[in-house]
């Protein structure tokens, strides 16, 4: 009889001594009761989430009780006399967006406070998001590229930043194909001309010349690790909530404004889709609110960030301002700049891991024979990996997803941040693949999407895969209309151990989703070369004879 049972019984006997006569039966009852105790599944994340909500509610209740005019409303009253409606609208809109995302029911008067967003996960029944297919992984590759350029924000400098950005963004299928070196074949010997009825020879058209892929590399994925981490029979898929009440409320707000140039009251069911503003000061920022994607981004207001080479008119002048490798600060200094920027602007990093500098440019620089010609980027990026329920989120192509802060090398300042999302999710359980052999087979083909395997490679390179962690991979599914819904599905993430030796490979990890229906739906896709396969430029092939040529060349 264990101590717990003894204690329970001794309490009982203290109340009613007669019960001691039935000790054996009582022991059996108490044991059975203890055995039958259900596991309450106490969830620390739920506790934290609820506490945050309650403390927000407490602040709101306190504010209502106090009912003092806020500094914000006083500013509004003053501004109404001296500025136009557009500026006032901007003052109203900016805190209103934040207030709605913070779950407050009216414009707050506390502009100086840190504002918490309505983060959290609401749980739905199993399979609530419909069917997932392997095609959703394809969608994710293309959408990643599109969304990254969107998130980079407006303005010329964003384009420049995107070009300079050393974050290895996931590469869409077409770009991956472009990474394979292609070369148009020198004009081949003209094939035998057609002889027409009248004996005139009709030459074969030049358009039948084929491009030839010079370097054909196959990648051989080799696993160097122990058994895979165990997954449960059902794993949780998360869907990011992109709907924002702010879009409706701001739409209503703007419909009530009287613009002289147009009648706003003629418009119905207005939803604000996005807005932006700039700081008109040296080193000011441009801020973009995307209310359809529920994401905020900041970038430098390029017109107010000094560029000393802007007045250059000759090569010598440009060369004098070129950055050198030693101008790029050490990683810890770059991270410190990024950390301070996030802290200064009150950007909540609780859902992110520690910052990591994206140093792919250094890998290429180290390999570069002529370092003087190497273009040192104007900025480097620090990525703070997003975590949902303690799992890191990756993009389909294996790079981490998350908050990205760009640090301007020349000015040693943060020049912007992307992917400030509202972390509001729904979750639903799906059946997981527990057959490790199947997982390994997919990992060894380079992921669910796979690599194209040349039949006659010029080189085969081993890609060494380390022991995977369980993370989440971001994918998009159509919502049945024209929009895409964003999901995070559980996946094995195999780190590439020798990525520094692979040259331009563009991947840091291989991801294999564990949702069974995605794997069941997967097809053995091969990446097609641009043109039919040729063995050499001496053998031009007529388009119509492609299949026959492919067979001949095997």
């Amino acid at each position: 009889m264990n101590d717990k049972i003894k204690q329970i019984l001794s309490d009982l006997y203290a109340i009613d001594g007669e019960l001691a006569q039935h000790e054996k039966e009582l022991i059996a009852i108490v044991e059975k009761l203890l055995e039958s105790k259900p596991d309450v599944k106490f969830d620390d994340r739920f506790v934290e989430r609820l506490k945050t909500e309650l403390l927000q509610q407490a602040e709101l209740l306190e504010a209502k009780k106090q009912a003092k005019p806020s500094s914000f409303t006083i500013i509004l009253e003053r501004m109404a006399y001296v500025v136009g409606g557009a500026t006032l609208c901007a003052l109203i809109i900016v805190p209103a967006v934040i207030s709605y995302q913070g779950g407050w029911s009216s414009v707050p008067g506390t502009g100086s406070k840190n504002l918490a967003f309505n983060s959290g996960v609401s749980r739905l029944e199993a399979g609530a998001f419909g069917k997932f297919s392997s095609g959703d992984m394809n969608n994710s590759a293309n959408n990643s590229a599109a969304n990254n350029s969107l998130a980079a924000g407006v303005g010329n400098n964003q384009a420049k930043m995107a070009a300079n950005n050393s974050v290895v963004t996931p590469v869409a299928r077409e770009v991956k194909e472009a990474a394979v070196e292609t070369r148009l074949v020198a004009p081949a010997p003209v094939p035998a001309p057609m002889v027409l009825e009248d004996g005139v020879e009709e030459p074969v058209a030049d358009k039948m010349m084929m491009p030839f892929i010079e370097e054909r590399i196959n990648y051989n994925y080799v696993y160097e690790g122990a058994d895979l981490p165990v997954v449960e029979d059902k794993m949780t898929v998360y869907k990011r909530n992109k709907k924002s009440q702010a879009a409706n409320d701001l739409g209503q707000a703007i419909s009530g404004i009287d613009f002289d140039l147009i009648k706003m009251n003629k418009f119905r069911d207005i939803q604000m889709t996005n807005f932006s503003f700039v700081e008109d000061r040296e080193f000011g920022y441009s801020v973009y609110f995307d209310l359809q994607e529920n994401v905020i981004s900041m970038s430098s207001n390029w017109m107010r960030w000094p560029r000393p080479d802007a007045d250059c008119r000759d090569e010598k002048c440009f060369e004098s301002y070129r950055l050198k490798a030693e101008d790029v600060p050490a990683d810890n200094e770059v991270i410190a700049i990024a950390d301070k920027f996030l802290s200064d602007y009150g950007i909540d990093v609780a859902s992110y891991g520690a910052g990591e500098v994206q140093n792919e440019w250094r890998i290429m620089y180290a390999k570069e024979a002529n370092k003087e010609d190497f273009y040192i980027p104007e900025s480097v990026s620090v990525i703070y990996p997003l975590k949902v329920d303690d799992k890191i989120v990756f993009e389909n192509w294996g790079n981490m997803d998350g908050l990205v802060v760009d640090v301007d090398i020349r000015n040693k300042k943060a020049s912007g941040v992307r992917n400030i999302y509202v972390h509001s999710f729904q979750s639903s359980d799906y059946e997981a693949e527990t057959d490790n052999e199947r997982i390994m087979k997919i990992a060894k083909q380079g992921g669910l999407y796979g690599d194209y395997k040349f039949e006659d490679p010029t080189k085969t390179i081993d890609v060494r895969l380390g022991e995977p962690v369980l993370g989440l991979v971001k994918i998009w599914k159509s919502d049945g209309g024209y929009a895409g819904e964003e999901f995070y599905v559980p996946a094995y993430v195999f780190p590439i151990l020798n990525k520094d030796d692979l040259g331009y490979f563009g991947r840091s990890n291989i991801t294999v989703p564990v949702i069974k229906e995605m794997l069941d739906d997967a097809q053995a896709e091969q990446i097609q070369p641009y043109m039919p396969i040729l063995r050499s430029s001496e053998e031009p092939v007529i388009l119509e004879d492609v299949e026959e040529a492919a067979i001949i060349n095997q």
Partner: protein
Amino acid sequence: MEQSEQLNVLEQCRQGDLSGFGRLYDFYIKKIYSFIYFKTHHKETAEDLTSKTFLKALNGISSFSSMQGSFSSWLYAIARNTVIDHYRTKKIEADIDDIWDLAGDEDVMRDLDAAQKIRIVEQYLAKLPARQREIVVMRVWQEMSYQEIAEALGQSEASCKMMYSRTMKVLRAEMPLAVFIAMVIGVMKI
């Protein structure tokens, strides 16, 4: 959390300073969640009803007075009523206090493992009046002291002890044969 500290926080809340509510939350969250879980056997429902309980408590705390009893009994009463409201909106029948009153009802959501675990004792605990069942669950499953139970139920310690011993007598009369058989079967499977 010491009684005196609790009283200080309550007084602050009454005067409009709700910043101390977080400390009350930290102290009671696990107890209230477990109390509700043992009445619902479903994680998501328990989390939802726990949230509602604390929100109601927050909204009403500034008007809470010790004349109403202890804060603990007030909070547990909110939790109990929240569970009752939850089931009575789902089922038209009047007398449903918690999921135990719906034993055998397939429409009600339960965690499978919880349903499995309580399978043997369910029929006996389900027959008990809600208050007696609460005492047994609090004592045996939640391992609360009689003082804590008394505070939670708004009763005296003596009456809680009496009710507990009577309930165990009832269980002893109802359960033993089936329990012994179940135990024997369990031993044989091992």
